[in-house]
């Protein structure tokens, strides 16, 4: 995140080179700002920066928590979720024990029936069809499949939620950092302007002191006292 540094001058042509699209900016003088306004801007910006730093710290904490992949991995371990969780063996087909026993009884009874009984062949064929359809998928396999599907669903939702929040926080953090950077730059500019003004005032004070201490001023002051009878000055 880089930001082009911009310096704002106090002179009449300060706008002319400001990084915009306009080459010819109108010539203007910057009006001296009301000292109260300068103090307010400074105080408000500093408060805003502090507030953003606090907000940023909170965000950092949340980001750190979220970014700890090991923590997420722990959660997965606790939930017994791994790559294997989503792998499922092919279903196993079985004939249930009670159906197998019933079939044995039928076969036993059929062994006692005379072979010339009318319709016996058709009966055996029909029973064969019933037997073939007795193969069933193990109920445990279904239960396992259901558990795995649920776990997969939960994991996907969890990951989705985490990544969404992470993305949002990243964006938020980037914007805040950008804002902080701008604030810092503005404050830096303000301080610089204030320092320049203070230096200027100090220079004026020194100049004034020099004038007061100078020979001509002392002579002028003496003359004035003489004329006013020591009341003036």
């Amino acid at each position, binding site marked *: 995140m880089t930001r082009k540094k*911009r310096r*704002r001058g106090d002179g*009449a042509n*300060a*706008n002319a080179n*400001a*990084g*915009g*699209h*306009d080459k010819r*900016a*109108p*010539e*203007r*003088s*910057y*009006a001296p*700002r009301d000292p*109260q*306004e300068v*103090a*307010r*801007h400074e*105080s*408000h*910006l500093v*408060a*805003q920066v*502090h*507030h*953003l730093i606090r*907000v940023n710290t909170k965000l950092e904490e949340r980001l750190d928590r979220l970014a700890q992949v090991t923590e997420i991995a722990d959660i997965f371990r606790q939930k017994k979720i791994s790559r294997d969780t989503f792998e499922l063996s092919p279903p196993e087909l079985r004939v249930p024990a009670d159906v197998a026993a019933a079939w044995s009884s039928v076969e036993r009874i059929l062994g006692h029936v005379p072979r010339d009984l009318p319709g016996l062949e058709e009966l055996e064929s029909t029973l064969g069809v019933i037997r073939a359809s007795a193969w069933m998928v193990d109920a445990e396999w279904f239960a396992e499949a259901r558990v795995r599907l649920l776990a997969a669903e939960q994991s996907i939702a969890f990951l989705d939620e985490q990544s969404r929040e992470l993305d*949002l926080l990243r*964006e*938020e953090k980037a*914007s*805040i950092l*950008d*804002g902080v950077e*701008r*604030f810092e730059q*503005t404050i830096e500019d303000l301080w610089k302007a204030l320092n320049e003004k203070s230096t200027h005032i100090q220079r004026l004070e020194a100049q004034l002191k020099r004038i007061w201490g100078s020979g001509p001023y002392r002579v002028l002051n003496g003359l004035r006292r003489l004329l006013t009878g020591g009341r003036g000055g």
Partner: protein
Amino acid sequence: MKIGFVLHQYPPRFSTGTEIYAHRLALLLRSQDHDVRVFTNEPDARQSTPFRLEDEPADGVPVRRLTFLDGLAPNHALSSYYNVFLGKAFGDWLDQTAPDVVHIFHMLGIGLSAVEECRARGIPVYVQLMDYWFLCPTVQLLRHDGSLCDGPAPDACMQCLAPQDYGYQTLRLFSQREDFIEAPPPGPGLIDVNHEHVSLRRAALVGRTQFIRETLQGADALIAPSRFIKGLFASHGYDERHMLHLPYGVDAPAEPIRPVPVGGRGQVSFGFFGSVNPQKGLEVLVSAFRECTADRLRLVVRGNMSHFPKYATRVRGLAETDARVLFQGPYAHDGLAGALSAIDVLVVPSVWYENTPFVVLEAFSAGRPVIASDLGGLSELVHDGVNGASFTAGDPGALMDVLKRFQDDPELLGRLASGIEPVRTLHQNAQEFVALWQASRPTAGASR
């Protein structure tokens, strides 16, 4: 001339009265070789963007759009009208675009610091009083119970703000506690108020009116579109000599409009155009219509019913069995001429102090008389018996009497239509602005 427009939201995503007015003015001025550029707030309803500055033009008008999440300001009550950081972002835009003059339509979401930034650069700045936001944090000078408000008072304001805003709810709760320590009155200039402490948030609300008034003194002039709003601001301590009365102008109808029928006993169609919300008073109109059994009258409602669904359902319920009332949904600005062609009289039953509703001017421009509440700037535009009729705001009985007059007197519609005076056009409005801006243009090198 290079002109900077500032407002709280801008097309294409926002298009109510102020935005359309500013945009059409910008397009018109650009067609006259003026270079208009816009700085606007771009509210993010989802609140997922903390801060963003984006350049996105609208119909060729360069627009810088600023989005800022309220929660990022330490003092929400202060930031709602004054935010130095946003002022600096605006200052950057001023440095880049270097306008000759800045014209501010609205400062919601940007703040009063914009005026300071213009002044610091010696750029003339004009502020147009589009509504009452400078006086009332909820904009409309309506109390939470719907009654008219005389002006700001911190406790009363908090009562209005609390239902809309969680920040003010907590502020209200805290400041009602017995152990709440009131911050000393904010010093001049609200210097040390930008902190999240509850007493300073309250102090920001307490100091709002005075601070805004003082800061607006830094503008070259405040432009009042109605005498009513000028008088209202004057009654709240604004210097009348610092305000100019400059009424709005509107576009002439884009296509020919059917003239209103003169005489005869045909059907008379009344129209309600605008947002369907309690302050616009549609309920008063529908109630009046229901009571009025006149069979020649018809009411066409053109407005968005989804912004205040409960209210809209109630109004629809009132008109349910009345086949004379038709709800036809909102219209696009381009479809205004067609919408006005379909009615004979516009009704503006507002129960708040309307400033100067554009729709009234547009109706006049299309030769449609207007029936309006006797409130605010409406009374200035609508003259009873001349270009329309007025009635006591919020009184369905009084409105019903007015509606009946159209049934009983077949000549009334034509008489009122002929009493409509020519409406100031947007072109005239733009010329007046340009003259004003040019008069205040700084001479080269002059210090302001």
